[in-house]
């Protein structure tokens, strides 16, 4: 066993493992996009509510109401972009799983056909 451990191939393996650049892939890469989308929706809604009840409603100052309109539009933009992100990443996640399932079933069917043949 000790021969095996000190073998040149293992030393080379150790060197190659040390040089590996671990990029830290994720199990569900779409989860980050979904989370960002969800957070953007919530921020957008909060901005919209704040623009009306916090900025526009309590005052008759047209300058402040103009600001409220800008903040409200910003909120709408956040919600639209967030919804887009959430839908895209949810669909990507669903179709990834669906594709894996399809490939798996196709392989199963091919194996069954090959066995019958």
């Amino acid at each position, binding site marked *: 066993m000790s021969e095996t451990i000190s073998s040149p191939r293992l030393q080379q393996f150790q060197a190659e*493992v040390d040089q590996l650049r671990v990029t830290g892939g994720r*199990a569900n890469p779409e989860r980050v996009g979904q989370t960002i989308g969800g957070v953007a929706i919530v921020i957008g809604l909060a901005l919209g509510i704040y623009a009306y009840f916090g900025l526009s409603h309590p005052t008759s100052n047209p300058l402040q109401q103009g600001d409220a309109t800008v903040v409200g539009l910003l909120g709408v933009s956040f919600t639209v972009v967030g919804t887009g992100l959430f839908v895209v990443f949810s669909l990507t996640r669903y179709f990834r799983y669906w594709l894996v399932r399809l490939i798996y079933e196709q392989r199963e069917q091919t194996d069954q056909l090959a066995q019958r043949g």
Partner: protein
Amino acid sequence: MTTPLLELRNVRAGYGTIDVLHGVSLVVEPGQVYALLGPNGAGKTTTMGVCSGQIVPSAGQLVLHGREVTGIGSDALARAGVCLVPEGRGVFPNLTVAENLRMATYAGVPYSAVLDKAFTQFPQLAARRRQLAGTLSGGEQQMLSMSRAMATEPALLLLDELSMGLAPIIVEELYGRVAELARGGLSILIVEQFAQAVLGVSTVASIMLHGRITRTGPPHEVAEELAAAYLGAATHT
């Protein structure tokens, strides 16, 4: 105390939102032949996917020779010397035997050396070098798959269901080759549904059920519990 070649630490992994492995831990020491046994659907192939970098764990760690490499790509692992022989037929069916072997030169081994090594290990492939791999028999395809893996001179060989769809005599021949490789000091992780084929070759064995390793020990001890585990698993599902 030696550094294990491969370690899985409490790994959870699966497909999409469905987890298949629920906290798998295993250790492959240098020179060891580790047999991972279990019924269909236990999570063995998913474990292989994690070990070869094809499936990224949702939790837990993949450790190679003492270094955590969780999330590393399968190409980087293959270049480092972790070689997977996948279940089914891991060959390109529309390429000839020689062309399939040419694909193994990615590791930097010259083509002539790859051919020489493959035809020495499996002489029957030499006669079929210009034949399309898809037209070979199941056993010959598996031999081609194995010889291609061996040509890359791996440090760790991952064998997934070598016996799938093959006649017992062919399986015996293939595992004879595996035993030769093991005697040469190669570390091997074998996944098998049909335990008898592999227990004679392995130095340590584990039983996997429902995404968890339920027992690890010397092959002869594990063999005694295997039938009960399989039947238990069958009645459980």
